């Protein structure tokens, strides 16, 4: 048993930190906040070259076939940088294609994703606030040429830059996943402007949007279990990003508490501040344990992997909220200014709290598993 990163994992972490420290400075993030597209094509291509986009894809498609632990390492660093962009939605969608796709579908999408030539996203949320795949109301009806999709998807991450949307819809066979061209007829994107400008979400309205029979990913009616598995993975990824953002907030708070003086002494020498920082560290360290246990459990197909994913999302969501909030308090007024960088990370963590099921959603999943 070894909870520490392997040398390779540590190397990945270090190189991610170095890359993001250089390319995703707070100033760079702010530029993307103001950018209509919200992401940097150059950075995206560099990420592809670093192997990040193919990190967990099979080697046949230009990937490195690494696991969720490695993904979590990258995502933690991205959270730490509040890095905007469709990285996680894309790799999560790629996972779906890899799991369920035909050879043709894999060839069509996985290689371009690995090379940075395609972006993808999954439209999970359909009913207002219900992450359960069972709650999906979007319908697909058979047509002469294939299917016609109708419904409204909410808060779809980075749909506006996606080359392909993965849309689950109800069919007579049950829940089915479709690969949908964002430019298809009857499909409208409406961007939502969120508190975290690094979080680009859109609603996707489908009004009889036509897709061919080849657009079905996996077998019709079989999307439910796949979506659940993707949600677990999404939960762990979001937890990893929140962990990174929270640790950044903690680091900034501690750094500030060491140098900021009031009443003739550094504020970190006052118990009110030092004890707050100690509690924040506790939550961050526990969050680390939660994220990487869950990531490992997914890779190892451990019996408790879905449980661990829910534990990570529920715990880290609450923890990151407290850590980021207290970081503002430790900073005082300066932490409330737009100019100071703290809010980049605070807002990033807050946005992720609500994604891939919030803490309440995952607590209910936990109870279903352990108190049946």
């Amino acid at each position: 048993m070894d909870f520490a990163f392997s040398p390779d994992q540590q190397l990945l972490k270090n190189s991610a930190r170095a890359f993001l420290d250089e390319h995703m400075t707070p100033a760079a993030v702010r530029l993307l906040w103001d950018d209509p597209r919200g992401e940097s094509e150059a950075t995206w291509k560099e990420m592809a070259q670093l192997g990040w986009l193919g990190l967990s894809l099979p080697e046949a498609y230009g990937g490195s076939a690494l696991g969720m632990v490695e993904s979590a390492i990258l995502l933690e660093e991205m959270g730490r940088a509040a890095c905007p962009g469709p990285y996680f939605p894309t790799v999560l969608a790629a996972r779906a294609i890899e799991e369920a796709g035909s050879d043709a579908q894999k060839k069509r999408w996985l290689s371009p994703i690995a090379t940075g030539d395609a972006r993808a996203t999954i439209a999970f949320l359909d009913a207002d606030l219900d992450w359960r795949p069972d709650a999906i109301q979007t319908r697909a009806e058979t047509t002469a040429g294939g299917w016609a999709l109708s419904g409204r998807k909410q808060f779809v991450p980075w749909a506006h830059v996606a080359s392909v949307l993965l849309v689950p819809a109800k069919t007579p066979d049950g829940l089915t996943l479709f690969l949908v061209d964002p430019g298809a007829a009857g499909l409208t994107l409406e961007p939502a402007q969120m508190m975290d400008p690094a979080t680009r979400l859109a609603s996707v309205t489908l009004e009889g949007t036509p897709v061919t029979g080849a657009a079905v990913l996996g077998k019709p009616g079989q999307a439910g279990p796949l979506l659940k598995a993707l949600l677990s993975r999404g939960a762990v990824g979001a937890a990893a990003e929140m962990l990174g953002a929270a640790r950044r907030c903690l680091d900034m708070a501690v750094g500030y508490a060491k140098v900021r003086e009031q009443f003739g002494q550094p504020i970190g020498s006052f118990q009110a501040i030092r004890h707050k920082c100690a509690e924040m560290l506790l939550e961050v360290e526990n969050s680390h344990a939660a994220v990487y246990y869950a990531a490992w459990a997914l890779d190892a197909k451990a019996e408790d992997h879905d449980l661990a994913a829910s534990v990570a999302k529920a715990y880290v969501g609450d923890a990151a909220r407290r850590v980021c909030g207290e970081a503002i308090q430790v900073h005082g007024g300066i932490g409330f200014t737009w100019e100071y960088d703290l809010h980049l990370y605070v807002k990033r963590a807050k946005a992720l709290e609500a994604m891939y099921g919030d803490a309440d959603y995952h607590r209910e999943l936990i109870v279903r598993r352990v108190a049946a």
Partner: protein
Amino acid sequence: MDLTYSPEDRAFREKTRRWLDVNVPKDDAKTLDERKAWHRRLYEAGYVGMLWPKAYGGWEATPMQQAIVQDEMARAGAPPAINGLGIGFIGPTIIVHGTDWQKQRYLKTMLTAEEIWCQLYSEPNAGSDLASLTTRADDQGDHFRVNGQKIWTSSGPIADWGLLLARTDSKAPKHKGISCFLLNMRQPGVEVRPLKQITGSSLFSEVFMTDARAETRDLVGSLNQGWAIAQTTLGYERGANSLGRVTRYAIAFSQLVRATKELRRGGRPLLEDPVVRAKLGKIYAELEVQRYAALRVLSSLQKGESPGPASSITKLSYTEFEKRYFELALEILGPWGQLIAARDEFEEVDTSSGEPGTWATAFLWSRAGTIYSGSSEIQKNIIGERVLGLPKEVRADRLKA
């Protein structure tokens, strides 16, 4: 004890409500001129300067009447008076500590918002430890030369005058070398730069003073007595806005309930989810307790009692509540609560400062309350020391002094 409003107060409330019904501008007052005009209408109706002596243009109303006005204005969604800090805090300081000349010169135009006032207290390195401020005012015979930087100044860009704390004796112990001035903001030596907050708007400014001029006649109180003035006036008119604040919370709560009826999960409105209901119940219970506590403070003010350091409990209570409130609201609303620009299908909500916004801005703004006007940590220190009588902290600046 008797918590019934008196017949007079009920009548006053009715009258105020009717007046607001007729007079609240249909479109929000947006330009400075419109806001000044609205302020002046409020003043003329007797709703500004309510606690001021009649001799200085005030109305000598009761704290309860003042609270009723704030409450009704919140209910009516009326824009606030424009010169809040002036009326609530700086004017009373001048009334208590100012010279006759100062009273003549400044009070009337403050009441009518012909001149807008701001407060020049905090500095980048003097926040919680305000007494360590370093802005200097050097005596030049007929005036003082002011150099330094202030921060967290409300109404900075529209202010004509500022109440300034500056160091006039750099050799004295830190609390004893500070003086209080009225500073003309419309002079070349004063530069105001809006400070953008994490909400995206700029309610505060930084103020840079470079060889700015404070006239000797604008010294408030005696030289080097500024700290005492700042201390005694803190807390003046606290409680005035307590009912209005709770009403704004309650309005937001109605909007929250409405949202939980519209948003659905598991095939039913959120409002039918017992976990959501538990959160709503928790918010509402706390909200009501804020109201009861506000009535308690008001009833004590009515009798002419001064809340003194106990006002730290009030401030700590509502600001910490507000944080929990909007955290829970965002928890309930999920991504809908994080929309920062309106969407047709989802209602907006004002921040507790009254600024129009969304749940996201109200949430972000809720983080400010436990920092400004003495952080929660400072309030707890005050409560511990001055209300509970706990022994003083061992602190570096006390050892040096």
